[in-house]
C-alpha cells in the first residue's frame, strides 16, 4: 500500500469515523467535567464500538485494522477531549502485546474493555529513557527502578513493563503485584498519570512476554503506533479548538460588530488554520509511516516536531482570540489548550523531536563528507 492509497479512506474507515463521531457527539461538557479522568461506562461504550480492538486480530475479538483506523479513533478522542487512556492501552499496550505474539486470552480482555493496560517504561511519553534494571531471579527476573511518568490510574488492571539493558524484556504484571508502588498524580488535562516504582519486583517466567530483540521490536512498533495516534489525537484537539474559536469570534460582539469582522483576528485565525492543515498532513503521514515503513523514526520525528509546534501555536492563539474569557476554566477552550500541552509532553515536545532531527542532520553531513573523502 502506498501513501496515496492511504489518503483514500476505505469504506470501513469511513464507518468507523461516523460511529466515532456519533459516540463522541453524545458526550456532554458536564459529563466530561464530572468524569474525574475516567468513566467506566464510556470505556465500555468504546469497547462496544470496537475501539479497544481496532488493532487486534479477529480471533481476539478485534477489528484487525491498522494505524490509519486507530488514528481516526484517536482523532475523535482528541476532538471530544476524552480523558480515558485509549492511546496508552488500546494502541500502545495492544501493539506491544500483539507484536510480542501473546495469546488471544491476554488480548481478549483488553479488547473487551475489561482489562486496561498501563505501559511502563516505553511508549509514552515518547523519548523518555527507560530507567529499569533487570536482575536474574530464580523464578524469572527481578525488576527495579522508577519510571516517573506513566499513564496509569485506579482503572489500570495490568502493567506492561519494558526493562531495557543487556537483556531487555517485556513483562506483564497485575496492578496489585508485590514490589510495585504507584505515586498517582493528574495530567494538566485531567488524565490519570503516575510515577511507578519497582523494588525487586519479581517477574515469573510466565509473565515475561518477550526478551531480547523480540522485546525491543515489540516496543519499537508500539512506539511508532503511539506517535501516530498521539499526532491524530492532537489534530482532533486542534480542530475542536478551532471550532470553538470560530463560534466565539462569530458570536462575540465588540464595537457593535462581531469579532470575526476584525482583520487582526481574522488573520490570526487564518494562520492557525494553516497550522492545523500542516498538522493534519503530518498525522496522515505518521499513521502511514508507523504502519508501513521498516524504519519510520526519521519521518515520525519530523511529524512530532511539526505537530508539537502546531499544538503550541494553535493553543496559544485560541486562548488569545477568546480574550479574557479564554482565561476562565468555565470556557471549554482552556481545557483543549491543556490537552494540547499534555499531548506535546507525551509526544516528547518540539525541542526533543528537533534534537533528534538535528543529530540526524549532523550525521548525514558527516556521512556525505566521508563518502566524498573516500572517492
Amino acid at each position, binding site marked *: 500500500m502506498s*501513501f496515496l492509497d492511504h489518503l*483514500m479512506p476505505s469504506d470501513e474507515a469511513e464507518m468507523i469515523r461516523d460511529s466515532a463521531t456519533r459516540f463522541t457527539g453524545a458526550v456532554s461538557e458536564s459529563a466530561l467535567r464530572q468524569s474525574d479522568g475516567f468513566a467506566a461506562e464510556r470505556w465500555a461504550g468504546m469497547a462496544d464500538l470496537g475501539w479497544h480492538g481496532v488493532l487486534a486480530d479477529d480471533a481476539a475479538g478485534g477489528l484487525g485494522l491498522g494505524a490509519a483506523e486507530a488514528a481516526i479513533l484517536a482523532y475523535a478522542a482528541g476532538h471530544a477531549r476524552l480523558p480515558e487512556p485509549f492511546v496508552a492501552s488500546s494502541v500502545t499496550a495492544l501493539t506491544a502485546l500483539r507484536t510480542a505474539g501473546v495469546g488471544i486470552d491476554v488480548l481478549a480482555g483488553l479488547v473487551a474493555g475489561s482489562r486496561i493496560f498501563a505501559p511502563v517504561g516505553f511508549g509514552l511519553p515518547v523519548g523518555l529513557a527507560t530507567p529499569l534494571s533487570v536482575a536474574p531471579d530464580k523464578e524469572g527476573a527481578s525488576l527495579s527502578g522508577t519510571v516517573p511518568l506513566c499513564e496509569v490510574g485506579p482503572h489500570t488492571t495490568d502493567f506492561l513493563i519494558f526493562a531495557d539493558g543487556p537483556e531487555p524484556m517485556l513483562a506483564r504484571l497485575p496492578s496489585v503485584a508485590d514490589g510495585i508502588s504507584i505515586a498517582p498524580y493528574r495530567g494538566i488535562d485531567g488524565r490519570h498519570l503516575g510515577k511507578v516504582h519497582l523494588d525487586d519486583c519479581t517477574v515469573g517466567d510466565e509473565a515475561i512476554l518477550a526478551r531480547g530483540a523480540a522485546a525491543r521490536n515489540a516496543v519499537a512498533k508500539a512506539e511508532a503506533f503511539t506517535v501516530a495516534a498521539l499526532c491524530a489525537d492532537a489534530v482532533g484537539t486542534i480542530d475542536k479548538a478551532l471550532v470553538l474559536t470560530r463560534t466565539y469570534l462569530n458570536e462575540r460582539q465588540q464595537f457593535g460588530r462581531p469579532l470575526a469582522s476584525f482583520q487582526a483576528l481574522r488573520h490570526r*485565525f487564518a494562520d492557525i488554520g494553516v497550522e492545523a*492543515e500542516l498538522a493534519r498532513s503530518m498525522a496522515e503521514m505518521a499513521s502511514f509511516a508507523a504502519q508501513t515503513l521498516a524504519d519510520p523514526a526519521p519521518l515520525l520525528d*519530523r511529524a512530532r516536531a511539526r505537530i508539537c509546534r502546531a499544538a503550541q501555536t494553535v493553543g496559544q492563539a485560541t486562548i488569545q482570540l477568546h480574550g479574557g474569557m479564554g482565561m476562565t476554566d468555565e470556557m471549554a477552550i482552556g481545557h483543549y489548550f491543556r490537552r494540547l500541552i499534555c499531548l506535546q509532553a507525551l509526544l516528547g515536545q518540539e525541542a526533543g523531536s528537533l534534537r533528534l532531527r538535528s543529530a540526524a542532520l549532523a550525521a548525514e553531513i558527516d556521512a556525505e563528507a566521508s563518502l566524498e573523502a573516500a572517492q
Partner: protein
Amino acid sequence: MVKNLEYRQPRDDVWDHIDLLLDDSLRAFRGEVRQFLRTAVPDETRARLDMGYSATKSEVVAFLKKLSAKGWVAPAWPVEYGGTGWSQLQRFVYTIELGNNAAPSVPPFGTAMVGPVLYTFGNQDQKDLYLPRILSGEDFWCQGFSEPGSGSDLASLKTRAEDKGDHYLLNGQKIWTSKAHYADRIFLLARTGEGARKQEGISFFVLDMDTPGIEIKPIISIDMSHSLNEVFFTDVKIPKTGLVGEAGKGWSYAKFLLGNERTGITNIGRCRRQVARLKRIARASHVGDTPLCADQAFLRDLARIEADLTALEITEIRLLSTGRDSAFANVGPSVLKLKSAEIQQALAELMVSALGPFAAGRGPQFVEAVEDVSDLPQVFFDGALAEYLFGRATSIYGGTNEIQREILAKATLDTLQ
C-alpha cells in the same frame, strides 16, 4: 580547504523520504525525469542557478527546446492541446525534480497562466495561433494585471480599452510586469465598460508587445537586478481578435488564472536543493571556531525548516490526491502559497546567515576579494544575498500572504454567518 562542495546531482539510487510515500510507478517515473534532466540542464546553467541568480533568456530558451522535444513543457494542459496526460502526482514529482536539479524555471506566464485561459475560454483561432508557440518556446509572455493604483485590489484597475468598432483603443499603465523586456506577447486586463460592481466591465486581452504605443520602463528591484517593469500603453490598437472570451467577463477569467497560479508556486524542489546546499555549506562555514555543522542553533534551524518542508510536501500531495475533501480543496491553495513563501524565505535567510561575513557582496570583485580567505567556493557565496532579496517577493506576488489570510478567513471563519 574543503574541496568539491558544489552541490551534486541527486543519485538515482538514493531515495529520500518523499519516495517512501510514492508508489513504484511514481518512483520509476521520478527516475526517468531525473535521467532526462541530468543532461538537459547544462552544468553552467546549474551553477549559476545554484548561486542564486535567475536564468538568462537564452538559458531558458535552450532548456525549453529540450523540454519541447520531449513534450514536457506544459504537462498540466489537456492532452489535445499538448499536455502530457500525467496524473497530478506525476506533475508534482516532475516539478520537484525540476527544482531539485536546478533547471531554469519554465516561464509560468505562458504555460500556467495565459495557456489555460486560452484553451478554456479562447476561440479556435486563438488556440491555434498561441498554444503551439508557447509549447515550442517561441513565444514569451508577460502578465499585465497590476497597476500603480491596483495591487491587491486588482479589480479597481483603470487601464481602459475603448471599443472603436474594428479595434479596441488601449490607454493606461501596468506595473510589476515581470520579464516584459523579454516578452513577445502580453495578456492583460482592461476596462471596457462600467458595472454596478468594480469587477464588472473588465475584459481579458492578448496583444503583441511590438504593437506601436507600448513603452517598457525597467524597475530595478532590491536585489539590484532587472526583472520587473512598468508598461505604458498610449493609444495602442488591439485588434478585435485580441479579446479573449466575452467582453466584460475578464474578471472571472483572471480569477481562474490566479487560482492556477497558487497551486504551482510551492517551489518544493528548489527548497530541497537549498536544504542540500545548506548541508554542504555547513561543512565549510564557521561560527567563530566551530564548524557550522556542529553548531546546534544552525542544525536546529535547519531541522525545523526540514520538518516544515515535509509538512508542505505532504499537504501538496493531499491537495492533489484528495477528491472527496472539497473543504480542503478550497483552502489548500492558499495554505500552500502562504507556507511555501515562509519556507522559501526562511531557507534564504538561513543561507545568508550560514555564509557569515561572506554573504555581504556579489560579483567578480567580491569573489576575488574573498576567495583567498574563505573555504567556501564561489558557488555558495556569490548570489546568496540576491536570492534572499528577491525572495522577499514570494510573499507578495500571486496574492500577498495577507490576501491569502483573508481568503482563508472567508472560507474557514465566515461559514457560520
